[in-house]
């Protein structure tokens, strides 16, 4: 045990002290936050400005095509497809005379092609204008129309998980986000840490240090020490990320103006209402921050965190043992590693694809089976757990999946241990999965 502990310490220390590890660990959260804010900023200010000439024989479109910060609509005379750019327009939009009995096309010509989002927003505007016109033709007044458009502001869907007396607000969007994010994180880390184990084993083999160490410890101890040590590196990274992200957000919150912070606290105390009379109305941004906090609080975080750690570790142990086995049979040629890795990476990629479907619909038979079978359960079960236990996933399903995952990684570790102890000292021979399986299931030496 003391020897395994020494190996774990070395594997852990050499990686955690590595500059690249520190860089990734501290830059990643900053990068993610910068990416979110940066893309938000770019979507507001960074897009190009367009000036569109509209040729409209109908007359009623004009009121619907309102200028925005990005698009300016003008309705000039004597502009056509041949001269719009020389007159200073980026695009020309040619509308036919609309007629409800036939389908017609309208044309947008541009010097530079227009993004899909912009195209969609223009076509939405025109369709709305036509719809409004048809309603007005049918005798609905302008004021009536305006109030219809505001209908969405009168009612909002609130979904509740039915837990008898203690019904709790649920949020499908949040569940989907958590499921997707944790599935994706497990997917990425399985690859990163799995290949880290494989490369570590390959390093020991090609450096021939394996022979020196195996004259001191059993091959299985060396393999296990490496897997556990690298797994601990992964957990450390997650822990640091969580600490960094929470502290960065609280720092960000404290940088908000004082009155905004006061408003958010008031909202929290009064359950989302600016209750007391005489108090000022909550600003839109305070409301938004409150809603975000409120939504995030609806999730069962302790359970999700526990499951995440469990499924990350389980999946990591399940797959990294297999990666170690591959590393042990590869000779100097990394090409061999590629082809031997294929049977391991395929189920990981498939599980990720299934996870994407499951985040939308957590209770299909596919979702059920994929979350029970250890090959895919680490990712798929996380996506389902995000929808809540015991609503989306019953307790026995969760327990079965966990037990099978533990059994699964015990099996792969045992299997890989047998392959590893032969492979690590075998030089020169090219090994296929067939021979590896043979090593695993025949008694040797």
């Amino acid at each position, binding site marked *: 045990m003391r020897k395994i502990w*020494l190996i774990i310490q070395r594997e852990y220390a050499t990686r955690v002290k590595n500059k690249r590890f520190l860089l990734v660990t501290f830059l990643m959260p900053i990068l993610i936050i910068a990416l979110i804010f940066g893309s938000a900023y770019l979507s507001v200010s960074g897009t190009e400005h367009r000036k569109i000439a509209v040729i409209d024989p109908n007359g009623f479109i004009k009121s619907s095509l309102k200028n925005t910060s990005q698009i300016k609509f003008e309705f000039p005379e004597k502009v056509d497809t041949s001269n719009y750019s020389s007159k200073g327009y980026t695009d020309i939009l040619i509308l036919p005379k609309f007629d409800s009995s036939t389908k017609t096309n309208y044309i947008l010509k541009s010097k530079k092609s227009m993004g899909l989002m912009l195209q969609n927003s223009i076509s939405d505007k025109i369709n709305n204008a036509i719809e409004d016109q048809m309603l007005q033709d049918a005798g609905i007044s302008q004021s009536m129309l305006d109030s219809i458009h505001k209908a969405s502001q009168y009612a909002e869907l609130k979904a509740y998980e039915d837990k008898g007396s203690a019904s709790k607000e649920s949020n499908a969007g949040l569940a989907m986000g958590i499921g997707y994010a944790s599935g994706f994180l497990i997917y990425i880390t399985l690859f990163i840490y799995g290949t880290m184990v494989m490369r570590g084993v390959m*390093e020991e083999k090609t450096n021939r240090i394996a022979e020196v160490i195996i*004259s001191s410890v*059993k091959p299985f101890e060396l393999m296990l020490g490496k897997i556990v040590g690298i797994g601990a590196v992964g957990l450390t990274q997650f822990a640091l990320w969580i600490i960094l992200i929470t502290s960065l957000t609280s720092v960000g919150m404290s940088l908000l103006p004082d009155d905004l912070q006061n408003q958010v606290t008031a909202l929290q105390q009064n359950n989302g209402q600016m209750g007391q009379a005489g108090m000022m109305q909550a600003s839109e941004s305070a409301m938004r921050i409150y809603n975000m906090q409120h939504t995030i609080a609806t999730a069962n975080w302790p359970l999700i965190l526990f499951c995440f750690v469990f499924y990350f570790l389980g999946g990591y142990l399940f797959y990294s043992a297999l990666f170690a086995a591959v590393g042990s049979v590869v000779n100097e040629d990394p090409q061999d590693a590629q082809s031997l890795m294929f049977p391991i990476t395929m189920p990981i990629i498939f599980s990720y694809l299934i996870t994407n479907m499951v985040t939308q619909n957590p209770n299909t038979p596919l979702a059920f089976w994929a979350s029970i079978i250890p090959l895919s359960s680490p990712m798929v079960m996380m996506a389902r757990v995000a929808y809540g236990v015991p609503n989306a996933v019953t307790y026995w399903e969760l327990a079965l999946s966990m037990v099978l995952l533990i059994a699964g990684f015990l099996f792969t570790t045992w299997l890989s241990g047998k392959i590893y102890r032969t492979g690590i000292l075998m030089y020169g021979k090219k090994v296929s999965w067939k021979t590896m399986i043979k090593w695993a299931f025949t008694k040797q*030496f």
Partner: protein
Amino acid sequence: MDDISFDIQKGSIFGLLGPNGAGKTTLLRMITGIFYPDEGQITLDGKPFNPTEDIAKIGYMPEERGMYKKMKIGEQALYLAQLKGLSKAEANERIMYWFKKLEMESWWNKKVEDLSKGMSQKLQFVITVLHEPKLIILDEPFSGLDPLNANLIKDEIHGLAKRGATIIFSTHRMEQVEEICDHIVLVNLGKKILDGTVADIKQLYKENVFSIETNQLENINDNPVFTVVRKEGNKVFVKINQGHNSNQVLTHLINNNHPIVAYNELLPSLNEIFIKLVESTHATARAFQTI
């Protein structure tokens, strides 16, 4: 590996010889417990070898030297010594002792990738003997070392043997074996073909050839006692005929009034014996294959 068996005396330096691919490394891996033999057994101090318990008593320096390239030398030595069961303080003390002895004190914070081949060889040797094993197994310990460092290591090997360690030493460099080993075993194609002390083996394979140094070599010719093999400079090489001995050669020379400057027996070098034996086993193997 086919039916190999030999004894190694405690405190002796034992040479395991054989051409490339003879099975030396495989044999050593069995002795170190890395491989298990299909049949037969290995005993240490009269008891069956138990890899889990006896592993700390063995120091193995494999032919292919292995180190973590990015790890600092001091940390690496400390780690490997602790894996052999030393406490950290103990390991530290002994590393300091050996580094001082072999003039490696300034290496502690260097990385293995910065060392030359010979330097990493020295380091590997230190790591092998740090935990004071009773049985030290060295696979080609001198490859890559300059004569100065080779002598340094050779002296250490002798010193270790004197202090009671048994040393198994595998090589195909015969001149080193002659210098160092007490006892040798020659293997080829997985079989043992020679076993004995260096002196015995030389006696066994001598061809009764003597060299006579004289200034009148033209007068020495074939006679009933010996046959002339060849003449070179002022030396005559003669082979004693069946039924005669070296004293009779001398008597014959004195009786015939040949002025003798020096007279001594020509023993075959291990190198010659090695080549002869290996070639003959290969020939037998080929003969078997053609049948």
